[in-house]
């Protein structure tokens, strides 16, 4: 399964970005292939309005089974993401990606 994170950096030691729409990066971990890849979200980060739906679009294209983020997404992005079958886990801000992934594996992250 593919796991997507909103992240402030590109590695396992990066902190989760609490923002959904204006996250710095979207990092994807492919559990089968055991590879991690990062997508620079600076283009979306720099739009004046509508960042949430633009990032939601990006996540749709990546098609992950799980999304791990901070205290977002907001109303519009949440409504859009509902149409995808992925599971969304929140309140992982202040954790590194590694910590967030372990919390998720141990069932300690909150699902919305």
């Amino acid at each position, binding site marked *: 399964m593919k796991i997507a994170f909103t992240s402030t950096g590109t590695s396992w030691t990066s902190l989760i970005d*609490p*923002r959904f729409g204006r996250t710095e990066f979207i990092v994807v971990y492919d559990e089968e292939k055991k590879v991690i890849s990062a997508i620079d979200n600076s283009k979306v980060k720099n739009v*004046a*309005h509508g*960042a949430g739906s633009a990032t939601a679009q990006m996540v749709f294209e990546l098609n992950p089974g799980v999304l791990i983020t901070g*205290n977002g997404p*907001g109303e519009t992005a949440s409504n859009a993401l509902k149409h995808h079958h992925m599971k969304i886990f*929140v309140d992982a801000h202040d954790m590194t990606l590694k910590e967030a992934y372990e919390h998720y594996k141990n069932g300690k992250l909150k699902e919305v």
Partner: protein
Amino acid sequence: MNEIVVLSGKGGTGKTSITASLAVLAGNEAVIADCDVDAANMHLLLNPDFATTIEFYSGELAVINQEQCTRCRKCEDACRFNAIVYLNKKMQVMPIDCEGCGYCEKVCSPRVITMQERKSGNVFISNTKAGSKMVHARLDIGAENSGKLVARVKNEAKSLAVAGNKLFIIIDGAPGIGCPVVSSLAGANYVVLVTEPTMSGLHDLKRICTMIRKFRIKAGCIINKWDLNEEKTTEIKQFLHDQQIEHLADIPYDISFTKAMTEGKTIVEIQSPNREILDRIWNDIKSQLQN
């Protein structure tokens, strides 16, 4: 480090006066951020020194290459904001009217219109009279606040708080429930709601509460000017109780609020019965964050 965002839903409830008071009480334990950039006015109370200025770019502006323009005037017809006019034998873009939609760029057959990033204001990093750092912004004429600008102000404040090992970031949020407010909530640990006992005060409080619930952030509410309409205050208290939102305090209407403001001071810097209430509110917020 804890991020405290002060929000009101409705404007004019005393949000900024209260935020500035909390900022003075927190002193150099906090970094202050003014995210109410459309009506940025916290600088009037905190006397910042505008130490650092950073240019801020947001949105786009149509730019016409005059040498290659054939004056076909298609862009003028296409622009629904009437931002392109034929003046002095040239097609000219009126920067204040241009919304940056890019329609003119699409219809321009000689392809001489480009959309360029536009400067929309400045972000400042200042030292305040309370001994804290403050991040604030000023928009250029015709520019509007955005989620992007709020994110920028907040991120600057966060870097300063991390670098200075501060305990708090106190954020004056924008009114309403739009994009800038959503942006100010990202990463927040506590929301202070400031409302007033009026029909619109309660109505907008309800809207903002729906939003905060979405972000799962702990909130407490201050009813400012509570004694102006005791019936409405009772109704607000009931609402807070039903929503399990902490009722932080009631502040009575007091002319000292206005008096302090005209002197460029916060309520906690003058002789006022409200000083004690604000002291208590600040201690209350701190103890709630520790739990």
